[in-house]
């Protein structure tokens, strides 16, 4: 570049060429430094704390795996993991099934698609605290659905899941599915619209029935959308915190505790920072198990395919 500048009659730009070489890296540097310190540095720090005897404040004396053995011996933690399995499993499956159904239905040249699509999607714009507040009172037996059905004449109708420690976790599922289904639908819809119509027409002419058409040709082509939906939903499930806080605050009792709420209460209210840090490390490992292979494949494909 120095040569080209010189050719244009400008003064020799040796310094400038150097600047053009270094400048991009300088511009990227603050973000990179922030990521290295605030993400990776902090992960290392929390990881280290999980091997120490930290209580209210960080303490740097290593005590080995004590926090981890303690963690997996705690009933609260096994409740949190069980709840995550129930909640995460149902959340992922129901969102995917409803999302796919809605996308296929909407793809049938529906009149009013432009009205329906935004209705399905708007919950995604809301805070989980708002969602939690709305559903908390709507599911409340005293004033919500139960009361509505009873005042319609069904006096013995009962729907008190949110107060029932066996069933409360399913209330979290109901609210979370409400929030995320539209988003999954949008992903599948984008996938459906990307499928080549010619193949479908050919199959239709060959006499394939509609369900067969979808099962054999359309759904297999949606594989990338399934994968993305799974990754997004799984990572949202593992991170779920706000919704539980707003909807049930982990209750009744500890019945809707999830790993995220467990970590917060052990670290900041029960002053067991070492155990809290250990639970955060486990959460990170769960997410990494889902995300790392996905990102690796995406980026590699990206740099190969361009």
């Amino acid at each position, binding site marked *: 570049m120095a040569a080209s*500048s010189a050719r244009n009659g*400008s003064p020799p*730009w040796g310094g*400038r060429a150097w*600047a053009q070489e270094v*400048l*991009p890296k300088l511009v*990227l540097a603050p*973000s990179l430094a*922030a*990521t290295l310190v*605030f*993400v990776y540095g902090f*992960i290392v720090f*929390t990881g280290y*704390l999980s091997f120490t005897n930290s209580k209210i404040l960080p303490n740097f004396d290593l005590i080995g795996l004590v926090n981890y053995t303690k963690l997996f011996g705690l009933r609260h933690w096994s409740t949190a993991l069980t709840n995550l399995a129930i909640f995460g499993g149902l959340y992922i499956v129901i969102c995917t099934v*409803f999302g796919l*159904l809605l996308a296929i*239905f909407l793809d*049938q*040249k529906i009149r009013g698609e432009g009205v329906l699509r935004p*209705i*399905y*999607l*708007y919950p995604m*714009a*809301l805070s*989980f*605290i*708002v*969602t939690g*507040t*709305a*559903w*908390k009172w709507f599911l409340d037996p005293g*004033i*919500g659905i139960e009361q509505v059905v009873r*005042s319609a004449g069904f006096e013995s109708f009962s729907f008190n899941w949110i107060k029932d420690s066996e069933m409360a976790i399913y209330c979290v599922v109901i609210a979370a599915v*409400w929030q995320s*289904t539209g988003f999954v639908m*949008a*992903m599948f819809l*984008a996938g*459906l619209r990307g499928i080549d119509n010619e193949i*479908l027409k050919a199959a239709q002419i060959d006499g394939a029935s*509609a369900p067969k058409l979808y099962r054999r040709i359309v759904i297999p082509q949606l594989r990338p959308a399934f994968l*993305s939906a799974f990754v997004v939903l799984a990572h949202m499930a593992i991170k779920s*915190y706000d919704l539980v*806080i707003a909807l049930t605050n982990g209750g009744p009792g500890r019945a809707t505790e999830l790993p*995220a709420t467990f*970590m917060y209460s052990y670290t900041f209210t029960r002053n067991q*920072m070492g155990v809290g840090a250990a*639970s*955060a490390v486990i959460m*990170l490992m769960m997410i990494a198990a889902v*995300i*790392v292979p996905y990102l*690796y494949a995406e*980026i590699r494909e*990206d740099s190969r395919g361009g």
Partner: protein
Amino acid sequence: MAADPGLAIQSNRLARALLYAALILFAVYFLLPLFVMLVNSVKPLEEIRGGNMLALPLAFTTAPWASAWNSAQIGVEPTGLSPYFWNSIKMVVPAVLISTLMGALNGYVLTKWRFKGDNLLFGLMLFACFIPFQIVLIPMARILGLLGLAGTTAGLVMVHVVYGLGFTTLFFRNYYAAFPDELIKAAKIDGAGFFRIFQRILIPSSGPIIVVTVIWQFTNVWNDFLFGASFADFDSMPMTVALNNLVSSSTGVKEYNVHFAGALLAALPTLIVYIVSGRYFVRGLMAGAVKG
């Protein structure tokens, strides 16, 4: 039936009717909570307690909205949600602007000034989007204390910028990757420098991705609860945290109508953004989920 059915299933009237019924049923499910919030936020309390949540108000009142905005008890102060609404604005605006600008510059470097190892760096930044924030809460609380930013809006802005960078960089990187390299090369030969090319060539054609990024960041930062609950004190507490305090406060009578009005106030900014620019909102969601 349309002349060109395309993907549509060739089907009879009954199947068609069932299809519409299912779609409308789903629409009802999605609209129900919003309807419940709206209807009950303009009812007197007695009407909710004794009556039917799905019924329209008999005695229409805006008192719950007024109370939620400026007199409801939040923690110990009867201030309503208004101070916290402004706290959120003061936090969201700088956080969105800074993280968007940095994301644009990062995306520009990562696509137009590529260097060895840039993909690895990008991968490191991208993974940061997905970490459970529980893993950073403890050290972040300490660092904010050391920097003198504990409990301040500036501290929250910093936190949101840092953990928003991965997504903003992703958005701009994918957008600029499709931008023709020839134009950049020509500009370089003409002696245009790093910032000049960015300012004159890339920024003018970045309109859509700027909108997508700003909406995405606005929604995420406005809706955040965890960071606000962990790092804010009373003077910097954002709207979501204040709303949760209002709703979960165990003292006194539960004023459901005020809670619903408060929830709607907290939802309003993002809801308006969604209504005004839904198309871009969806694009952001998709870009965040599926690589470009």
